[in-house]
């Protein structure tokens, strides 16, 4: 009989902190500068240099810890992780080992409609390495140390996830959280947010952990999902044949959609961790923690509940709005300036504004239409100055030109005629011109009603409010009975 397997997944998430300077030097952390222009003596590991801890990185790590309900160590220790690699200038990475700054904590994820708690083992501060570039010169490798020394927190979860879907859900949750906390830009393409996945299988119902493999450096949600799925099916095959999974580090190749062995446990480095004698224990006082707690921004889960309670929005809509901090901020700015129903704003943002940002591949944070212009547009619709159809055209023009809706309405004569007196006249004119058709209508040719509406709108050059036209037309045709 076939054994049914359960997959067990834990993630190590590497989050680049948004500090201006590096974790142990004063060099800038900006992305994309010319190679090796943002590496100072300390980053280059020159003889005699010493690291000095960036306090802002510590504050950000504490912020994360507090946001996931973790314990903040008041004397955490930096340790050296020793290994040779060309883009690791000192021959060791300064990291934390025995006493990390953040330990214990959890995040709730949505697993098949139910809340599931994913435990966070620890989060520690460390420095990023530089980059090796192998495809620039024919027989040589190049090294760019701009990234060397960029602060990271590595967030290690317990093996609490049971599917690639849960893993992605958890990863998205952290991705969203670090941007709400404003400690990471979340840019996965630039490597600001990446993860390693530990995957193992065990017989369903068992409490023991199977032998795991670690998939390194996954830098998109899609890759995380695909890599884990591949690994689950690969391990299932291995186990089904009665073989053992080999404990090893694997690499995911997105082009082939498969993982391949990088190094086995035997080949693994002995990192010879020991406390870094160049750095003192990181002393964190209660006052510091209290201060950070007081300045903590509203977290996504809390904002979700508030949006549902305060605005009476559906969970589905709220999930979309809070999926990006900038989007939910945008929403609240618009809501403050409109007179209409909040649901109407949510609909317009989700169906129109987000559609445009998808179409133009623009991140919600970079939407070129300001919340105040967008609220003017919403008000123009709800005041019936323009039709929904017109509004869509205007929004596209606003997106491209950066002009306010009023400018576009004025310039292009978009405003809607809702004045009943004016529409009365238009209706009278059309009915007079088509008196034969009116008779046919009265004799039962109902279809002609649409024709009259069309003619009236045409007469108004498209500006007549169709709802008012319909209303008045109905009355007129009744009156003449």
């Amino acid at each position, binding site marked *: 009989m076939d054994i049914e397997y359960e997959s067990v997944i834990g993630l190590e998430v590497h989050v680049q902190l948004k500090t201006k300077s590096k974790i142990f030097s004063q060099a800038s952390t900006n992305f994309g500068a010319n190679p090796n222009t943002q590496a100072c*003596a300390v980053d*280059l*590991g*020159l*003889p*005699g*240099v*010493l*690291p*000095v*801890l960036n306090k802002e990185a510590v504050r950000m790590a504490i912020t994360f810890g507090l946001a996931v309900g973790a314990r903040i160590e008041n004397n955490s220790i930096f340790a*050296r992780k*020793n290994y*040779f690699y*060309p883009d690791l*200038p*000192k*021959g*060791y990475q300064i990291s934390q080992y025995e006493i990390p700054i953040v330990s214990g904590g959890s995040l709730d994820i949505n697993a098949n409609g139910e809340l599931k708690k994913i435990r966070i083992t620890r989060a520690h501060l460390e420095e990023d390495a530089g980059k090796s570039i192998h495809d620039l010169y024919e027989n040589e*490798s190049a*090294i760019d140390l701009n990234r060397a020394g960029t602060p990271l927190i590595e967030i290690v979860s317990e093996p609490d996830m049971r599917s690639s879907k849960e893993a992605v859900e958890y990863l998205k949750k952290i991705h969203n959280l670090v941007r709400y906390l404003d400690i990471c830009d979340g840019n996965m393409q630039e490597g600001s947010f990446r993860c390693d996945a530990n995957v193992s299988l065990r017989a369903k119902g068992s409490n023991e952990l199977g032998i795991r493999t670690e998939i390194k450096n996954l830098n998109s949600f899609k890759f995380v999902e695909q890599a884990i799925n591949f690994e689950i099916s690969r391990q299932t095959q291995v186990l089904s044949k009665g073989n053992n999974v080999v404990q090893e580090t694997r690499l995911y190749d997105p082009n082939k959609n498969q993982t391949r062995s990088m190094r086995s446990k035997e080949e693994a480095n*002995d990192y*010879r*961790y*020991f406390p870094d*004698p*160049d*750095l*003192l224990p990181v002393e964190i006082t209660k006052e510091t923690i209290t201060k950070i707690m007081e300045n903590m921004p509203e977290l996504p889960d809390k904002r979700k509940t508030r949006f549902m309670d305060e605005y009476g929005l559906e969970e589905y809509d709220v999930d979309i709005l809070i999926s990006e901090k900038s989007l939910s901020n945008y929403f609240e700015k618009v809501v403050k300036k409109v007179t209409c129903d909040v649901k109407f704003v949510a609909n317009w943002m989700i169906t129109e504004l987000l559609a445009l940002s998808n179409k133009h591949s623009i991140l919600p944070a970079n939407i070129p239409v300001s919340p105040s212009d967008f609220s003017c547009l919403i008000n123009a619709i709800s005041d019936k100055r323009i039709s929904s159809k017109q509004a869509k055209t205007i929004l596209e023009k606003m997106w491209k030109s950066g002009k306010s809706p009023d400018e576009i309405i004025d310039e292009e004569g978009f405003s809607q005629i809702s004045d009943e007196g004016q529409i009365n006249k238009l209706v009278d004119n059309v009915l007079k011109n088509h008196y034969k058709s009116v008779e046919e209508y009265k004799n039962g040719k109902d279809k002609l009603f649409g024709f009259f509406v069309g003619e009236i709108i045409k007469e108004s050059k498209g500006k007549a409010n169709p709802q008012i036209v319909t209303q008045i037309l109905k009355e007129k045709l009744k009156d003449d009975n």
Partner: protein
Amino acid sequence: MENKTLTELTVELKSKKISSSELTKYYLEKIKKYDPRLNSFITLTEEFALKKASQIDTEISKGNFKPLSGIPIAQKDIFCTKGVRTTCGSKMLSNFISPYDATVIRKLNEAGTVMIGKTNMDEFAMGSSNETSYFGTVKNPWDLERVPGGSSGGSAACVSAGLAPCATGTDTGGSIRQPASLTGICGLKPTYGRVSRYGMIAFASSLDQAGVFAKTAEDCALLLTHMSGYDEQDSTSSRESVPNYLQECKAEFKGMKIGIPKEFLEGLDHDVHLIFDEAVKQLEKVNCKIVEISLKSSKLGVSAYQVVAPAECSSNLSRYDGVRFGHRTKDAENIIELYKKSRSEGFGDEVKRRILVGTYALSAGYYDAYYIKAQKIRSLISREFKEAFDKVDLIIGPTTPDVAFKLGEKLNDPIAMYLSDIFTVSTNLAGLPAISIPMGMKKNLPTGLQIIGGHFQESKLLSLAHEFQKMTDWHLQKPDNQKWI
């Protein structure tokens, strides 16, 4: 001129009795004449020195006098000096020109000193005889057949031979005090954290401390005042305020309670013991109360040191991989070969030995047995010192068990070599300040008296040293240079 102390020289410079240029030329010429036999310098910075000296002279003529204006100084080649080759006594860095100044160098420059050259040393400060230098052995000015001690052997030898009025050094397990003792001069190792380590090439970061060599305790005090202080580039440097050590060491001496650990007298050469007893008698004359104490764990000092120092060094020296600076092998097929060959070619035997020992001590499965245990011994030693300083003001003993040994005598016997630091390592493990001053001669060779103080008690130990030097003239004796020409 060479018998003048720094304090005397600064008076003459200030009163324009002598110019910095004259003084600098005087020492440079002496170096050229005598150093070929002594080998105490790796790099002479003549052009740099003469330019700086003439700038200082201009400043002095304008009435702008800094505390050490115009004083020539020799810098141990472990301190990074901008634009000047900094080798650390190694082939690995024989082509390394630092783009920045160490904090010690910057501070001494700002105080007005004139660097005349970079001194020879054991490779990466690993050694007690100066025989591990890639740039050749340094000789002891008192007997050219003997070692000057190490690792700061070049600095000690040049001051002892009168080729420089003062020099910097570094002390990880005795590297200032032991050579000071063997060459008959004063060598001060301050409290860990007193002087910034920024720009001082790391050997064992938790033990390394910069200090000075000079002829008198007063001169050490003067130099220390202008090297010390918190440095924001060194997280382990102390915020403890810096007193005027010169003034404090010259303040009226009112007697002290001094402890002699019985462990420091074990395994001691008989003659050195007699010389030490004589020194103790001198101290008793100036109202010092001598008591016997015990520092039981200090016997474990060398063992603990030989785990902690190599462990840290194995990590500190990983950066010398041939990738960005320093020696790179000429032929390597791949990156692993580049590492292996560059490091095999660039490092000497003693450095390799310590990297191996340290790597082993930190390895999985051995870490607890070696590194953690050594750290526990370290805490024990610190505690014993602390308890001792509850009872006494200072602790004294001979700096080394015997006088300078012959060249080559201990080179192939690492254990014997390591034991020459037996009285000095425990102060590094505890981070305490200590000084070695000349206390007498065994035949024609100097011996040193070590004075150890509690944390940041430099003034106290300098004060005792100064008092001793008021009563004795061992520090004024000098080797006969004429013999070697």
